[in-house]
C-alpha cells in the first residue's frame, strides 16, 4: 500500500483488485457496488480486509465467490448502517410544519423511505405521522439492500442506550408527545410499538439495479446517495422523479444536494436549508 500511493494511480494493483472484487460480487450475487463513490468504498473494503484477516482483495474475492456467508459479512462493510431516530431534527420539524399541511390534502398517502437501514427513519416518520393524525391513511414503503438491516428494521428493537438521543431528537423535531409512549423496555432493549409498523411494507430494493415500484407523494432518501458516484446519483434521482406524483416531495440528507444532478430541473427548492425539494409539473 505504501509505495503504491502515488498520483495518478493508474494501474495501481489495489485499484485493479477492488474493481475485480466488485465485478465478482455483481456477477455472482447481483449486488452492484461498481459505481459507489471510490474513496469511501476503498476505505471500507480495507477495513473489511484487515478485520476479516485477508492478505489482499484477491483472496477476499476468492472466498466470497465460493462462500455465501462471506457475502453477508462483506455487506456489513459495504453498506454503512449509521442512523438515528429523528436524525437532523430540523429536517423533521420542517416536514411537520411545511410538508404535512400539503400531505393533509390527500385522502391517502404513500411515502417511500429509500435506504432505511435499521429503521430509525421509518419509526421517526411513523411517529410524526401519528402525531399529525395522518398515519392511518398512509402506507410507508421502506427499502434497503441489506437484508440483515431490514430484519432489524422489521423488529423495531433498539439498544436502550440509544433512547436518550432519540428522545432528545424527537423533542427538537417538534414532538407532540413523549417518545416513551411508543416503546416498552425489556432488559436493555427498547421495543417499539408494532402499530407503528402496521402500514409499513419493508422490501429489498436497490436504487442501483431495481426499478420504480410505486407512485408516492413523498420520498425520503437520506445519506444513501453520498455513497454513490455522480452517474449513479443521477439514476437514483431519476427513480425518485418517476415515482413522485405531481408536486410530490423529495427529502435528502443535510449535506446532499440536487445542484449537481442532471435531473435538477425536475425539482424546485421547497425548504432549501433542509434539502427538501418539490417535483415540478412536467
Amino acid at each position: 500500500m505504501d509505495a503504491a500511493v502515488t498520483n495518478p494511480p493508474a494501474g495501481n494493483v489495489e485499484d485493479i483488485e477492488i474493481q475485480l472484487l466488485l465485478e465478482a460480487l455483481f456477477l455472482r450475487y447481483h449486488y452492484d457496488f461498481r459505481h459507489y463513490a471510490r474513496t469511501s468504498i476503498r476505505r471500507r473494503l480495507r477495513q473489511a480486509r484487515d478485520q476479516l484477516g485477508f492478505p489482499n482483495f484477491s483472496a477476499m474475492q476468492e472466498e466470497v465467490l465460493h462462500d455465501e456467508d462471506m457475502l453477508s459479512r462483506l455487506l456489513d462493510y459495504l453498506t454503512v448502517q449509521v442512523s438515528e431516530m429523528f436524525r437532523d431534527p430540523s429536517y423533521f420539524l420542517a416536514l411537520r410544519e411545511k410538508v404535512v399541511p400539503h400531505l393533509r390534502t390527500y385522502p391517502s398517502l404513500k411515502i417511500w423511505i429509500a435506504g432505511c437501514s435499521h429503521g430509525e427513519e421509518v419509526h421517526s416518520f411513523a411517529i410524526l405521522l401519528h402525531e399529525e393524525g395522518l398515519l392511518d391513511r398512509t402506507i410507508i414503503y421502506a427499502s434497503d439492500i441489506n437484508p440483515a438491516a431490514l430484519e432489524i428494521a422489521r423488529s423495531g428493537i433498539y439498544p436502550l442506550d440509544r433512547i436518550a438521543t432519540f428522545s432528545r431528537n424527537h423533542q427538537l423535531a417538534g414532538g407532540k408527545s413523549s417518545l416513551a409512549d411508543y416503546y416498552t423496555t425489556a432488559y436493555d432493549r427498547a421495543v417499539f410499538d408494532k402499530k407503528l409498523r402496521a402500514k409499513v411494507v419493508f422490501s429489498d430494493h436497490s436504487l442501483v439495479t431495481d426499478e420504480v415500484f410505486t407512485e408516492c407523494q413523498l420520498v425520503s432518501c437520506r445519506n444513501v446517495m453520498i455513497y454513490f458516484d455522480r452517474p449513479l446519483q443521477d439514476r437514483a434521482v431519476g427513480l425518485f422523479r418517476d415515482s413522485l406524483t405531481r408536486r410530490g416531495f423529495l427529502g435528502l440528507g443535510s449535506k446532499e444536494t440536487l445542484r449537481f444532478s442532471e435531473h435538477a430541473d425536475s425539482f424546485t427548492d421547497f425548504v432549501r436549508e433542509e434539502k427538501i425539494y418539490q417535483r415540478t409539473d412536467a
Partner: protein
Amino acid sequence: MTGAAPRAIVIGASAGAVQALSDILPRLPADYPVPILVVVHVPAAPSGLTRLFAAKCAVAVVEPDDKERIAPGTVYFAPPAYHLMVEREGTIALSTDEPVLFSRPSIDVLFESAAESFGPELLAVVLTGANEDGARGAALIEQAGGSVLVEDPASAYAATMPAAALARCADARALSLDSIADHLLGLGAA
C-alpha cells in the same frame, strides 16, 4: 518544501483550534490559489465555525455539500458528524461512516484520502489538540511524497496532537503558528 505551491492544503485541529486557526486563516488573501480542507473536532457544531471564520476571512469559507468541486480561494470545513474526504477527480466526498478514534469528522480520514488524491502535491498542517488524530494520516501523506508542517508542541495550546504527528513523520517541520501562516502566505505569492 520545494517552494512550488501544492494542489491542496489539509489542516487538522482539535482542542484550542479556534484560536490557532484565527492566527492563520484570516491572513490569507481572497485570491489565495490553493484550496484548504479543514477538520476540526469541537464540541460545538462546526457550522458555527464556518460562520465565525466566514466573517473574519478574505478567502471564502464554506461547509461543503457532497460532490462539490474543490476550488482555489476557498476553505472547506468538515460538516458536523460527517467525514470529509476528497475523490481523485478533485471533488468533495462526505460519509457518515463510524467515528475513527472517537471522532467524526476524523483528521486521519481526510489526510488519507487527500494523500491518495494529491500525492506529492499536498501540504498537511497539524495544529493543537489533545489526542492522536492526524498522526497516522500525516505519515501517509509523507509516504506519498507530500509535506507536513506541525505546530510546535512547546507553544501549542494542547501538545499531544502535534507531538504524535512529529513522532510519526520523520520529515515534518515544527513551527510556530506565525511561521505556519507565513509559510502558507509564501505559497500564495509564489
